[in-house]
């Protein structure tokens, strides 16, 4: 099992959710987060003065999936969250040792 952590533009969340539903990936946890990449944020102007804003609002999607589903899920996310401009985000994939469904106590594949 793998944990897919995708950082995307907030306005792309709806598209990504819909696309993942189409391939049968329904479970996810979504958080509002702030972050920055290599471009170090943007400049905003207030009352005639410029301010560097280096932590931008982003949306984090966390999905735990079977190993064989990871590629199709990440492909869908890349496809639907991409604009081609700086700030589209990143996807991190890491192993998951165990999953437990609290309601039933099921573990492993059954609990994903």
């Amino acid at each position, binding site marked *: 099992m793998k944990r897919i952590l995708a950082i995307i533009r907030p306005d792309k969340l709806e598209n990504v959710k819909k696309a993942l539903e189409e391939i049968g990936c329904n479970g996810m946890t979504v958080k509002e987060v702030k972050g920055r990449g290599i471009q170090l944020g943007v400049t905003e102007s*207030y009352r*005639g003065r410029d301010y560097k804003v280096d932590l931008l609002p982003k949306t984090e999607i966390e999905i735990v999936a079977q190993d064989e589903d990871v590629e199709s899920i990440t492909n869908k996310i890349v496809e639907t969250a991409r604009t081609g401009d700086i700030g589209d985000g990143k996807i991190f994939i890491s192993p998951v040792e165990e999953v437990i469904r609290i309601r039933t106590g099921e573990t492993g594949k059954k609990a994903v």
Partner: protein
Amino acid sequence: MSAVLSSGDTAWMLISTALVILMTIPGVALFYGGLIRRENVLNTIFLSFVSFAIVSILWFMYGYDMAFGADMWGFIGTIANPFFGGVIEANTLSTYAPTIPTGLYAIFQMTFAAITVALISGAVVERMKFSAWLAFIPVWLTLVYLPVAHWMWGGGWLAQMGALDFAGGTVVHVNCGMAALALVLLLGARKNSNLLPHHLGYSVIGTGLLWFGWFGFNAGSALGATNLAVSAMIVTNLSAAVGMLAWMLMDKLKTGKPTLLGALSGAIAGLAAITPAAGYVNITSAIIIGFVAAICGYYAVSHLKPRLGYDDALDVFGIHGVSGIVGTLAVGIFASPLINSVTTGGLIFGQTHLIGVQLLAIVVIGAYSFIMTLIIGKVIDKTIGLRVDDADEIRGLDINLHEESGYRLS
């Protein structure tokens, strides 16, 4: 002919009074509340509300009399009716506005005192102790606002010299601007002195309420439902509109994009600048006043402040102080006897006296407010302490001073 109560004038002044109350709570409170860090939103709003409450009480204990009571040496009014004793019961009409009750004139003026204090808070937000602010309000009201209001409006020495301030260019705006400057010099800069508004939507609502309420502020200062009130309302609206567009123009020229906060700031600069002049100038003059005030405000905020290095958090000096100075001088230039027969006119009517006394009013009131606020602030600093602990400032004042959060996720 003896004075008779006019129900029309009284109705308009009741409405004007309510409009000016709306400017402070929640107008100024929301305008300021949207511009600071989210961790300080409640404290910032609270400063305006508590100012309004304290001034409301003190005004009727002794404030009105000190500002508008019988003149003593041109400096201060006599406290003849402490706690407003017997005034309302006597059903008298105001000596300042002979067609409305004395009590109505008094509460109308109270709203000016309250908003002046609340405006100062914009400079000190995000790092001043709440207890220090509570101590500051009554002392500043008594030692600064009441004498200054008496000098200009209560028959004091500046009024006797012919200085004009229709609705508060010196008493409200120069006064709060200079007091703000003094306080921030004592307080020092914030740990994080960026102006990154956490919720510009609040500021939009706050500015809308200010603009709306300003019709009570300026047109209400005609003290009746008269042609002068209509004239004041028109020039007030025009100056705000021109101020807004002028600031947008500056944004466009300097950074390539107009900003909403810039537009709001320009509107307030235009409103503040027309305030002393609203009852004395025509439409052309109002357009010039709004335009010049916004340009001067823009430079004060974007150039003067960073160059001098003081941290006037929400630009009380840069917008209110500077616009108050521009508008008060503008009275000396543009005042027209065709608009208001109390004046023989300013420079454009060939009169030089008025511009002289206007300048004197700015210098004296500005200097008095600045120096007295420095003294008051210093005393509070030595006793209560002006500034919160570093840790409280970094983590935010809402949770540390009030045990409340403006925003909660669950």
